[in-house]
């Protein structure tokens, strides 16, 4: 377990700025998405294994708490995707881009692209929650 402590301390204290933040956020978003993906495969399988339970699960997903979680999930998927494309493109086609200045600039661009994709989606999803769960906007 000392290995776990060493790794976590390293994650938290390494001063890699943008490159390190991108690494941490990529992992956090990847693990979060993976966790929900596992749950989602099993919940979808309920349509065959236990159809009545599937209806319960969808009702749960419609609650405000899960709606907010869904908005965070969408951010994770967008950021992990944009940053993953950056990693794959650099590793496979432009390894010379793995320099500190390019890493910093490209990380900032990655975050901007992710937010441009996420904000409209988040606003629309929040609106859906307000309509269906709070009766606003003519819900």
């Amino acid at each position: 377990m000392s290995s776990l402590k060493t790794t976590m301390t390293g994650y938290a204290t390494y001063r890699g700025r943008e490159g390190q933040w991108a690494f941490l956020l990529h992992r956090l978003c990847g693990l979060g998405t993976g966790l929900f993906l596992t749950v989602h495969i099993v919940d979808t399988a309920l349509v065959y294994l236990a159809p009545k339970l599937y209806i319960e699960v969808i009702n749960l997903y419609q609650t405000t708490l899960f709606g907010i979680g869904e908005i965070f999930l969408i951010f994770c998927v967008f950021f992990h995707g944009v940053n993953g494309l950056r990693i794959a493109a650099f590793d496979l086609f432009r390894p010379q881009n793995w320099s500190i200045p390019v890493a910093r600039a490209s990380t900032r661009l990655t975050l901007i692209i992710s937010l441009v994709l996420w904000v409209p989606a988040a606003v629309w999803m929040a609106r859906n929650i307000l309509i269906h769960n709070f009766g606003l906007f003519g819900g």
Partner: protein
Amino acid sequence: MNQTNSLPVNPPANYETSAWKWMRYSAFLLIPLVWGHIILQDVVVGVHAIGNDPLGYVAQRWASYGWRIYDALLLGFAFAHGVNGLRQVAQDVIHKPVARKILNWGLFFFWLVITLVGAVALIAGVRQMP
């Protein structure tokens, strides 16, 4: 500081090298698949719109073989990408060869079981309730 001297390396053609490449190749495929899926299901349709008859919604969607193939690709590529990612993260803290062997086999069976559960539903479809 603007240039990195790149050092050419010849990675061995082993499982880890294949897994490293797999994560990157699958990323290019997962962008259209996953983004298409979340934009359609979470934003455009939304979980509230399918709430009146969730089983009917899935049955209608899976009546099209195109969507079933789409979902099969998602299941196959996204989950394998995710489990291998989890394996990479875990290897940051698990170093002993024996522990890594247990990790690898454990995650392989985890991947297999969940994938089979998903595949069963995808092939069998929505069960009609009496």
